[in-house]
């Protein structure tokens, strides 16, 4: 098991390296435009351009440029935003991380609980009304744009029904946990639910399919012949095996969420997380910030995937020696 963990994290490091090279190539080696002009932002004066060229070593070969960028990002932490008059990028990101993590972890907990609950219910109660409802929610989960759903939620809770049902909903924004868990959770409640609802639908639908397959497996028949209760068969045998593919998907989605969908949710709900930071950088093409947030997110995704793979190996003894 420990060997497996080491191997898995070694692979994660390699992937991280590959991603950083890829990002580097996209930003610095795409043919067409002078990368210094890109980094300095629109209409930069010659002095700034010269400063950028020196700082990133654009007169030097590509590997040196790569090393310089990595140094700015991870060692000296002095990557600067030129569009934003010399703000340091890394501290901005570090400041934004807790917001994104609050959003994503909270949503993930809700969607896993809801998804597993609804999926199990639908799988165990096939033929009742629960089943088509869960299936429908699953289709909506993969079809509705999350940022749009967030806007509709905002419209309802902040405007249309804000004077009656939803008068308790605080204005958009983020309150750190240090100012009280209650306020923190209250501000994040609707972002959480918006994000979680769609994923819960997808997961419930997937789990239902897996569960129905598992319930037709021979080992379930064996378990019945052993004289176990239906509940124990469902939970200990069928569900336990059905969760394996769900967990591996969770790793992918959790990672993608930190970088992708959460970005949109943060923008819509005005949460100053890494996604919002990226969004603002996109509005004025602030490349150093985009590079920083992308590599941060990639780091997170790869880490999450590695953790989930290790978890996966705990769940499924068959992959441990592979």
């Amino acid at each position, binding site marked *: 098991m420990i060997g497996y963990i080491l191997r898995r994290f070694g692979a994660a490091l390699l992937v991280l390296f590959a991603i950083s090279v890829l990002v580097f190539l996209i930003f610095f080696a795409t043919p067409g435009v002078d990368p210094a002009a890109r980094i300095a932002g629109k209409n930069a004066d010659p002095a700034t351009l010269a400063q950028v060229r020196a700082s990133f070593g654009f007169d030097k070969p590509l590997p040196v440029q790569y090393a310089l960028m990595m140094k700015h990002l991870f060692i000296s932490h002095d990557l600067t935003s030129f569009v934003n008059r010399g703000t340091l990028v890394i501290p901005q990101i570090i400041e934004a991380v807790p917001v994104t993590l609050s959003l994503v972890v909270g949503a993930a907990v809700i969607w896993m609980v809801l998804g597993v609950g609804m999926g199990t219910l639908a799988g165990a109660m096939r033929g009742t009304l629960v089943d088509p409802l869960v299936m429908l929610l699953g289709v909506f989960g993969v079809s509705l744009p999350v940022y749009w759903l967030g806007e509709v939620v905002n419209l309802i809770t902040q405007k249309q029904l804000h004077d009656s049902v939803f008068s308790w909903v605080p204005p958009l924004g983020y309150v750190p946990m240090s100012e009280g868990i209650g306020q923190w959770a209250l501000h994040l409640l609707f972002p959480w639910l918006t994000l979680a609802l769609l994923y819960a639908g997808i997961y419930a639908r997937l789990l239902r399919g897996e569960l129905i397959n598992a319930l037709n497996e021979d080992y379930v*028949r064996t378990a019945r*012949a052993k004289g176990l209760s239906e509940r124990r068969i469902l939970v200990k045998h069928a569900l*336990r*095996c059905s969760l394996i593919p769900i967990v591996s998907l969770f790793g992918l989605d959790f990672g993608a969420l930190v970088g992708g969908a959460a970005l949109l949710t943060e923008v819509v709900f005005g949460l100053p997380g890494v996604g919002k930071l990226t969004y603002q950088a996109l509005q004025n093409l602030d490349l150093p910030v985009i590079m920083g947030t992308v590599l941060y997110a990639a780091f997170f995704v790869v880490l999450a995937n590695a953790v989930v793979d290790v978890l996966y190996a705990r769940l*499924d003894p068959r992959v441990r020696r592979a």
Partner: protein
Amino acid sequence: MPEPLLEVSDLRIRFGGFTAVDGLSFSVRPGEVLGVVGESGSGKSVSMLGVLGLIRTPGAEISGKVVFRGRDLLTLKNAEMRAIRGREIAMIFQDPMTALTPVYTIGWQIAEQIRAHEKVSRRAARDRAIALLGEVGIPAPEQRVDAYPHEFSGGMRQRAVIAMALSCNPALLIADEPTTALDVTTQAQILDLMRRLRADHGSAVVMITHDMGVVSEIADEVLVMYGGRAVERGSRRQVFHTPRHPYTWGLLDSVPRVNGPRARRLPTIPGTPGASGQGCPFADRCAHSFAACAEVPPLTGDSGHLDACWLPEEKRTR
């Protein structure tokens, strides 16, 4: 003659419009081995699943009587049935590769069954699992008890499944083609094992198989099924030495012989199995069928050797 342990009478199992088992009756005495033979689709597995209440298909209709130790199993509540399954009647399935839950150790799965029926500690259940694994011939059971199913070979898994089935000392063991998915040498070992275990534990066994060779080695009584019905029933000696039903003749003829004149070609039963709508289910594949076969023949006979065929006595020669 001792009281039968299991007595099935007029068992009928229907799925929608399709009758899988049609008026099956048989009994098993304590300690006896009943071999149930037939082609795939003859209803032999379905009838045993019906006996244990393991048919989960929605819309399945089951009728008749299944009396086990004086209680009709078909009328029992779920919880009462659960207490019998695995404790008094255990079942072994055909494919050992898929019969075990892949994510738990062998020992865990055996202990699970023990603890489902008896109030024993985890420790004690595990010790019993180790003892059982040793008994079914798994080397180094103290280590292998913590192995996962995928770490076992097919024969080892079937041994583990048998160990699990025997864990509560059942009075009746139903084995559904326990050797079919295994290679020939392993088959022989598993049969040996089952014979020995029957002697040690004294369980009665219902052995479902399509292999006449297996029946001839292990069975005391033989039940031949075709199209969801019993077509011949008798002691092993009776069925093998004086078979009475044309279908049984066909089954016996299609087993290659080691001595005697060598057949130029192994005889087969023509056609494909499947009950015809009315009359004798075997009629359209039977070389001897005649006018009377348009009606279903009853299962009749004397001195315990019964058959369901209209063929007159003088023509009962192969």
